[in-house]
């Protein structure tokens, strides 16, 4: 601990360099060759494997694990990437405990699944280290497609379209591509600039022109895009955050968790990122967990994650809850925020016990709001009330416009779901443009 470890208020440099390095190291270190072979040996090569059904991108998991077991991890990676071009990132960030690994028959057998996520990382790391992305472009089609949003959905869509020989312009409002891979997820899940490396590797397929700093509604309009391009894919993500709607929300020290995480992700050195001494995170999803854990890892003395409902209602998986607890985050359930108080800057936050009149107060010099994100401008498209309405292949209410990822209806707000939706929309766009749709 550094001398400033217990400094009051919001401060940076609470820890030593060694502590920061240890705290922000890989959450799941990569498997060694030997570990990968041992892990791969546990796969039963199930028929119509449940893990495969549980994967939003339907990766042929038994096949890729068998390819690892037979010393061809590069072939395994191709199996993965054919279904999910962001297989490297998904291997790191997927909540496998609620997806493929939860479905693994070894859960029934001995409550200990095959380590599918780490094996996927082993294979994709191997292939990415060996060279460029392995897909070739088809002959040029002359078709031009605008993909708006260079997050998982947009990248997946753009890559698949480029593969088919289309010309893609990939727009993003931010200065870097990657979307939540770059700005959102927890640092310890994608160390060493993996998000940026993966995007660079993916774009190497060619045929994709990156246009950064271009926001729809500001620098671009949907009308102009539909005019100029043969098709438009919207992978905008959720750009607005929900408000608590309680007194004190505007006090200094009350932040949106997504913005705070983005700042941390973009920081060169975590020692420069300020964090409160007593932090309260409001919410129950992955963003809340990521914010709480990283606040603790930055040296906050106490971090409380307050969720308004019961533990079993919490969207974040038990694995994530346990991860937070293991890092020293205090999980508080059935706590509804009532009022944030302070003189200028936040000093405390009062809760009610959900559904009762009972009240209690926590000391807080930083409050992070992680109570969900929402769509910004609906762009005149039909919505399901919350998100852009799409059919099974991502078609919106407007002809020539597809959407996928967090901005589109259906699916969970997961990287892997976004990849699947981007890919499937690309397939439909391709079929439509080539007269098969």
């Amino acid at each position: 601990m550094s001398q400033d470890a217990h400094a009051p208020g919001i401060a940076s440099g609470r820890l030593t360099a060694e502590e920061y390095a240890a705290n922000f190291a890989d959450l799941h270190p990569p498997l060694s060759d030997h570990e990968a072979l041992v892990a791969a040996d546990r796969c039963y090569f199930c028929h119509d494997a449940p893990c495969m059904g549980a994967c939003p991108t339907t990766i042929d998991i038994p096949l890729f694990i068998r390819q690892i077991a037979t010393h061809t991890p590069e072939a395994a990676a191709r199996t993965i990437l054919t279904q999910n071009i962001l297989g490297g990132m998904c291997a790191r960030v997927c909540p496998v405990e609620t997806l493929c690994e939860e479905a693994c028959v070894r859960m029934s057998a001995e409550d200990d699944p095959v380590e599918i996520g780490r094996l996927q990382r082993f294979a994709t790391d191997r292939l990415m280290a060996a060279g460029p992305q392995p897909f070739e472009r088809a002959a040029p089609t002359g078709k031009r497609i605008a993909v708006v949003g260079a997050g998982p959905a947009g990248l997946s869509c753009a890559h698949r379209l480029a593969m088919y020989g289309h010309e893609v312009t990939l727009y993003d409002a931010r200065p870097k591509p990657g979307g939540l891979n770059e700005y959102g997820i927890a640092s310890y899940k994608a160390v060493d600039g993996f998000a940026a490396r993966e995007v660079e590797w993916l774009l190497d397929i060619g045929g994709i022109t990156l246009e950064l700093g271009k926001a729809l509604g500001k620098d671009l309009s949907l009308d102009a895009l539909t005019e100029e391009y043969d098709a438009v894919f919207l992978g905008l993500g959720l750009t607005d955050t929900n408000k608590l709607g309680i007194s004190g929300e505007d006090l200094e020290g009350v932040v949106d968790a997504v913005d705070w995480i983005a700042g941390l992700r973009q920081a060169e050195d975590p020692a420069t990122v300020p964090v409160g001494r007593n932090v309260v995170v409001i919410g129950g999803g992955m963003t809340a967990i990521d914010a709480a854990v990283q606040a603790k890892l930055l040296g906050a003395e106490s971090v409380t994650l307050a969720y308004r409902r019961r533990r079993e209602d919490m969207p974040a998986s038990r694995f994530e809850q346990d991860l937070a607890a293991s890092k020293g985050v205090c999980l508080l359930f059935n706590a509804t925020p009532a009022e944030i108080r302070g003189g200028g800057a936040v000093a405390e936050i009062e809760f009610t016990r959900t559904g009762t009149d009972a009240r209690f107060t926590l000391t807080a010099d930083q409050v992070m709001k992680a109570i969900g994100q929402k769509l910004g401008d609906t762009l005149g498209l039909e919505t399901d009330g919350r998100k852009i309405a799409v059919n099974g292949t991502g078609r919106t209410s407007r002809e020539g416009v597809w959407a996928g990822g967090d901005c589109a209806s259906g699916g969970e707000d997961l990287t892997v779901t976004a990849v699947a939706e981007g890919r499937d929309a690309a397939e439909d766009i391709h079929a439509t443009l080539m007269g098969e749709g």
Partner: protein
Amino acid sequence: MADLTTDFLGIKSPNPFWLASAPPTDKEYNVRRAYEAGWGGVVWKTLGEAGPPVVNVSGPRYGAIHGPDRRLLGLNNIELITDRPLEVNLEEIARVKADYPDRALVVSLMVPYDEKAWQEILARVEETNADGVELNFGCPHGMAERGMGSAVGQVPEYVEQITRWVKKHYQRPCIVKLTPNITNILAPARAAKNGGADAVSLINTINSITSVDLDNMAPEPTIDGMGTHGGYCGPAVKPIAMNMVAEIARSPDTAGLPISGIGGVTTWRDAAEFMALGAGNVQVCTAAMTYGFKVVQEMISGLSQWMDEKGHKSTADFVGAAVPKVTDWQNLNLDYVTKAEIDQDLCIKCGRCFAACEDTSHQAIAMSEDRTFTVKDEECVACNLCVNVCPVEGCITMRELKPGEVDPRTGMTIPEDKRTWLQHPNNPGADPLACIVRGQ
């Protein structure tokens, strides 16, 4: 506690677990460690003629087949007989035997096809006070090129002749070790018996190439870019060995000839199975080479526990007990019908039974939307493949249909009596025995 003491040809040992003639028994140091670990007996690694010893390769001697998690399932070797001087081996044998009088010590021998050569070495062995000799007519590599090992074992006349010479020049028990690299194991077994052998031991290793180095395009183990066939052993060869043991045990003209069972014995159960098929004891090599001498402790405790559970007082109680149940295919009851049954509580829903049955067998397993797997009795021929591929022990079992029950597949009512091929109406042959040769 069951008594594991074994009397094999009058050679007493505290248990039926002997180490086979092989690298683990090449010298005094190893053999002393083996006895200390609890092995009942040892067959000393094969001695050759006096004079300059054979020379082994100094590149890799072994190749292997692995199962999941690199479990060693099969091992092949291109090592020759002992490459240490005869004098050294004989001195060590005498010393060890003197120090461990309660353990079996048999000496394996391999010298050229010449009575004098055999006479000379037998005299030397006799001086060591070893309990007996085992004639190595089995090694399929290296020594066979020099007219010994399997080159002898594959010619029954040679087997018989050398056995006669040995019985003529040596007073203690003579075990003839047989090679499996032969069409019918009964021929050399009969020859050994006719030559006066006190017992046969089998199997020696199986000729094999375990793998090919695809970078160098050479078989493994590779010696300076080249490879040769070697002798295969380990768990993978056990089924082959047990069939050969059983054939000798049940053939009228060889029945009763004592057998030392060898081939992939890895656990107490393997040993019990060999012994049930007629082996008076077993010899082990690969298990020791894989796990060290300590494995014998599990073999001793396991066999002992099982014998207690079954009420066997001594190993003689069950040696050969399964032999009467080994028969020809034509004697099997064709009206015996079983059906696979899947225990839904044990099933982990991997679907391997379904894939195996649907793709490669009789489409007798149904798969529901929620991955419940059930047997279609009207299709199930009871092949047992689902049982074999299921990863959960005891999850799929075979239920026997009782007399009076109807087999939904054939519509046949299970009769009280049995009907073999010999009684079956589809059998066109008046004398079906004529074309059937035992052991093939």
